[in-house]
């Protein structure tokens, strides 16, 4: 062990501190990892249930991140653990996915719910850094509800020829949401087709 005076002491000390930090973080991660994953899934389920109140459970496609939503007829509950699972081969009642738009203050995270025929069921803002009082109004339900039932051709603000009223003073934020949704649907086309074909 190096003494406090020696040149090696700072190196040894800092190495020990970092090692201790690594051990502490590994332990904490070990304890919390599963709980965090479960919490996240529960949070996603609640968000999806806001758009699809009839949903009972969902599955996620690993590659594209597309959620397929199922109602109670497709879900079985394990009597002992209470955990639910989706019967294979079931028909989804809708789809959802995360996408993002380029807003005024950075990325706007958007959750998009799609009907089986790929019309928009509704959208929710998951995260944003838009200006409070202006762009932040994109989270208001009155703005978001305009997207319900729109087909891809109408998904734009009025100034761009669409059917969505932009928020006064926040054209960039409003446009970012509309463009984010359109881009998301384009990105998901392949995954949606694959899921559609995979069905019975």
């Amino acid at each position: 062990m190096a003494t406090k005076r020696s040149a090696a002491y700072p190196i040894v000390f800092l190495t020990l501190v970092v090692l201790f930090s690594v051990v502490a973080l590994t332990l904490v991660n070990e304890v919390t990892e599963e709980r965090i994953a479960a919490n996240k899934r529960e949070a996603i389920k609640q968000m999806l249930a806001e758009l699809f109140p009839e949903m009972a459970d969902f599955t996620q496609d690993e590659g594209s991140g597309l959620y397929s939503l199922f109602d109670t007829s497709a879900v079985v509950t394990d009597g002992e653990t209470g955990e639910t699972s989706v019967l294979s081969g079931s028909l989804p009642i809708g789809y959802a996915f995360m996408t993002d738009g380029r807003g005024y203050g950075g990325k706007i995270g958007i959750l998009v719910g799609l009907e089986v025929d790929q019309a928009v069921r509704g959208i929710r803002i998951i995260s944003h850094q838009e200006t409070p009082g202006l762009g932040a109004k994109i989270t208001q339900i009155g703005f978001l509800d305009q997207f319900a039932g729109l087909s891809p051709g109408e998904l734009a603000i009025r100034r761009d020829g669409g059917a969505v009223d932009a928020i006064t003073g926040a054209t960039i934020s409003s446009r970012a949401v509309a463009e984010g949704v359109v881009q998301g649907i384009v990105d998901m086309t392949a995954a949606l087709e694959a899921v559609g074909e995979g069905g019975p």
Partner: protein
Amino acid sequence: MRSFVKNLTNGIVRSNPTFILLLGLCPTLAVSTSLDNAVGMTGAVLFVLLAANVIVSLLRRWIPNRVRIPTFIVIIATLVTIVDLALQGFAWSLSQSLGMYIPLIVVNCIILGRAEAFASRNNVRQSVADAIGMSIGFGVAILLISLVRQLLGTGSLEVFSIRLFSVPGLADNPASIFLLPMGAFFVIGILLALFRWMGVSECE
């Protein structure tokens, strides 16, 4: 005991981290747009500052002078990560409302500043007093700034979704500039000038 109280009150007025030491202004300016944010940030700062001060104070005899700053940063970053994971695992709803402020604590110079200026030179008791005092001082400052910004920027006062009151005239036509970054600079500059003028803070 007297020095405990002295160190505690020191952070609130005489060495207020925000208004006198001008430490940690970046997160202060960034999140002081509403009272909810201010409360969340204060809680997070209190916890991390307390833990960091105690650990640094305990280790102060063994920390080599030449690598003290990296040591402090490793300790603080580890603490912040542990807090973040623990909140996500065991208090999900709280972590959702505090989520964005937890990582901001790492870049809050108050924590590093107190480790360097106080905890590495004083015993655990005094470091605890310093941490609590500094956190209260920080809390008072950020609440004050948030109060002014939220009131002028939205024209009404709303705490945790409970509307307290709104200012007639201003509520329909709020001065949104106070919610923008430049508004933060206006408010903190005017408050600083006010405190100097009132003689609360004297130039050292």
